């Protein structure tokens, strides 16, 4: 392994996958990437495979991961450059804005990967992108009589404290999630590219999915029984499980019918505010935002998804209801958030079970009348009846007309 590859792996990839401090400096140049790519085969002997395996085992007990390849290296380099574009010292660099645009274009190029060929390839991408979405940033805030100054991802320089009166200045640390923090325009535009690179991450975090996301792109992975269990439990474990279900079902119905289930919310003012530093990279003009929105509104790439994939998604969403019923927490949490149209549709899904039972089966075996199964069966029946009282009839009839035929008739045909 060359020195340059070792530096990149030790400074970025290993901390990213191992949840350590990762250091961001100058962006990786295309010529450097070619140099790294030539030695990617040496990664199979380093710590990276073990870290990937450990991270994958947080989802699956026995994941079979392929060796690191050039595609994964491109993903890493793209993620690194996204962070480099968000560096707080960009204004110090002697470069024109068009050069920063080249950095953005390079990052977008490396992030534009084809659809994963199989489940393992998708899992490998999720390992990196999932860790990237979870990234934290360690800021230091210098407080003094003149106000506060935030050092983004950096320590306060010693020169600021050298001549200060003792006790006049104080420094405190703050860890904030990077993904939801305020970014420069370029990394802000690249966030959707990051998520498009990993369909599995979008499936596990549907509320963060980019606009126009199609859940059927990852529905095939639900055929893996262990992964389907992971998805259902992760959705059900969230406090916002109803909104998650609504987001998935809303995206699915938009994909199937081409009509939004709800009026689009007004977008925030564009472009998003930067940190207010003068001389910070100006980035592209804001008209690009409109172009990106237009691209996102176009139909997605045709995905080879059939009725089995739709059924798998519907089954997973209904199973989330069942998991919440098992935890006694469903009935109380249902009422307050039932005004949103996709949410209402998600809550209405268990009411469709009589129409879908031939394809999806039932949550419990038919002879569950005694013991624990009997108790669960009673609670499930009571929950479904409660939903029947809560959900307007028109919502159920709408779903019976639009969603059920895509599962039942197509499956029987």
């Amino acid at each position: 392994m060359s020195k340059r590859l070792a530096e990149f792996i030790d400074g970025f990839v290993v901390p990213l996958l191992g949840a350590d401090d990762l250091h961001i400096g100058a962006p990786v140049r295309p010529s450097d990437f070619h140099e790294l790519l030539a030695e990617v085969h040496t990664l199979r002997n380093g710590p990276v495979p073990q870290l990937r395996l450990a991270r994958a085992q947080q989802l699956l007990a026995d994941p079979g991961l392929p060796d690191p390849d050039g595609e994964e290296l491109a993903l890493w380099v793209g993620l690194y450059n996204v962070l480099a574009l968000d560096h707080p010292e960009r204004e110090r660099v002697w470069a024109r804005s068009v050069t920063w645009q080249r950095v953005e274009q390079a990052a977008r190029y490396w992030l534009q990967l084809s659809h994963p060929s199989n489940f393992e390839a998708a899992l490998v991408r999720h390992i990196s992108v999932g860790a990237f979405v979870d990234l934290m940033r360690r800021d230091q805030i210098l407080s003094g009589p003149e106000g506060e100054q935030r050092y983004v991802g950096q320590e306060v320089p010693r020169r600021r404290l050298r001549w200060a009166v003792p006790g006049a200045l104080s420094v405190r640390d703050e860890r904030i999630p990077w993904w939801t923090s305020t970014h420069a325009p370029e990394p802000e535009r690249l966030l959707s590219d990051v998520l498009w690179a990993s369909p599995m991450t979008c499936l596990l975090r549907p509320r963060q999915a980019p606009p126009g996301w199609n859940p059927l792109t990852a529905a095939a992975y639900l055929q893996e029984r262990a992964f389907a269990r992971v998805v259902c439990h992760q959705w059900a474990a969230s406090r916002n499980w109803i909104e998650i279900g609504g987001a998935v079902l809303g995206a699915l119905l938009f994909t199937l019918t081409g009509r939004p289930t709800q009026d689009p919310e007004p977008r925030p003012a564009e472009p998003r505010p930067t940190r207010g530093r003068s001389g910070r990279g100006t980035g592209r003009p804001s008209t690009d935002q409109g172009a990106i929105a237009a691209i996102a509104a176009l139909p997605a790439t045709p995905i080879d998804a059939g009725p089995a994939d739709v059924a798998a998604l519907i089954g997973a969403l209904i199973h989330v209801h069942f998991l919440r019923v098992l935890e006694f927490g469903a009935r109380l949490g249902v009422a307050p958030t039932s005004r949103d149209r996709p949410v209402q549709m998600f809550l209405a899904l268990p009411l469709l079970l009589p129409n879908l039972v031939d394809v999806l089966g039932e949550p419990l075996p038919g002879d569950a009348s005694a013991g624990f199964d009997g108790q669960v069966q009673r609670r499930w029946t009571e929950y479904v009846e409660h939903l029947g009282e809560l959900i307007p009839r028109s919502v159920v009839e709408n779903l019976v007309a639009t969603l059920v035929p895509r599962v039942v008739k197509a499956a029987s045909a």
Partner: protein
Amino acid sequence: MASNLLEPIAAGQTRFHMQGVAPDGRGIAVGRETLLVFPSLDRLVAFLGAYSEECSLDDLIPSLTLERARRDGGGQALLLRCAGGDSYALDRLGRMATAVHGQLFTGSGTVFVRYRDRFAPFGYDLSGPAGRAPPPRAAGTPAGAVLLAEEVLVVDHDYQARYRATDHLDPVELIQRLQLRAVPLPPGGLGESPDLCGLHDLALVLVAPGLSDRVLAYLWGNQVAMAGVRVALAGERRASLLLRLRQPSGQVLSVLHGIPGVELLVPVSPRAAVELGFRHPIHLASASSCLPGDEMYLFRGRVARVERLEGAPQFIDGSHLVVSRTRVASPGAVGEPGDARGVASTSLQVALRLRPAHGAREPRGALVPWEQAALLRKLVYLIPPTALAAARLAVLPQGMLVLTGSSLGGAGAGLAAGVGAAALIPLGTRIVEVAPGVLVPDGFELWPHVRPQLIRELLGLEASDHALFLGPGTDPLRLRPDHLIPLDAAMISRLELAVSEAPPSELLTRPEGAAAAIVNDPLGRFALWGFGRVDNAPIPATAGRELPQGHDD
């Protein structure tokens, strides 16, 4: 009387077309629920006010629901639903509802019929059998009626109206938010009213913060029996003064009523008072359930606010509130004979002092000098855990006061009767308690013997304060609750966990959910060196799919 929808009930009739209706003891058909329909909100408020004057709203509130409903065919109404009682209660409701242009119906669920009148003394029933046109969700409705869950159908002689509930009103919140109604005062002043407008026995006075001293001095000078408490009103930085006057005179009330910033409040119930000159639409004395909790409510009319005081105000006698600066200017300026409260009485004052005593008292604490801090540090290891948890430490210039029990609540009260840490610490001076929260060194007592509660008042101690006498000739120290910190937390030093140097392989054992952190390294001036193009040609528009070229420098 021509009636198509309803038919009168005969005497002794026990079977009805209308479901949920049964005859009571007098044979009058009464439903499980009662529905009152009012055309507007002010009619509803008028009904509640009239009802609260005659009966107790506390009987009605538990089963009361208020809904704003829209009527099919246009129009809105306010629906009041409550549990159906016997026919006596319904007669009363009907009388009051009719007086305020409301209508009374009885029934259950979603269908209600007109209550009895003089043409049908036993009430009304649906004219048609229920099975003629059975609706799917509301059995017992007339033909053709299909009701939803939020709909209510009322049936009168010759019409039926369907109401769809659009909004629910909380009756308790509604009653608390009602605007007060102004009532006239006697033109010649409050003294003209025989009962002083309800202030004859008791009056509450809310005084703005800046006026409190002057108002207190005025009342003190007029010998008004008073007690007061400082209350923090919402949105005001300084606490106002709430005074309770016993049997005030009309002249005093007239003077107070004319002062801006001073509000006279008439107590209308043990937990509510309404500003003088205003009246609450509801008779609050019969509606204690409308004022939940143990808060006290002050309804202020001029500023249109409702002040909630946390808990019943604990009034303090007015003698402790007055700051008296009265001096005898000349011998002839002395007031009435026999009233010597304004005269300086220093000749009668005696000092409260410590003197040696021989009686044995239970130790409540120990004052450990700083020289013995190291010994105390070692003794902490020997104190039992329960005693250690209950002990409190106050850091004083004279040493460390370890307090393990007190007659006051709060710190260390749990161990007041048991053996505390102070009994186990053989260091320093033992401290005993001569009055609740008043601590003196062991072997001393306060002289003269005054009532224990008076000692606290003389020392000016607040509810949770302690006073510590260190010895004869020294001033006592006031220990506030924040001075007393738990002994275990104060003595046990903060633990620092050693950071192990994990080998790279141990990165794999990081807990699930741990996230990496970004550290931005310094960026050099030439960080983008190499991103420029060799030929300086512009990047094509489709550069998103094309890898930008670069060169090494």
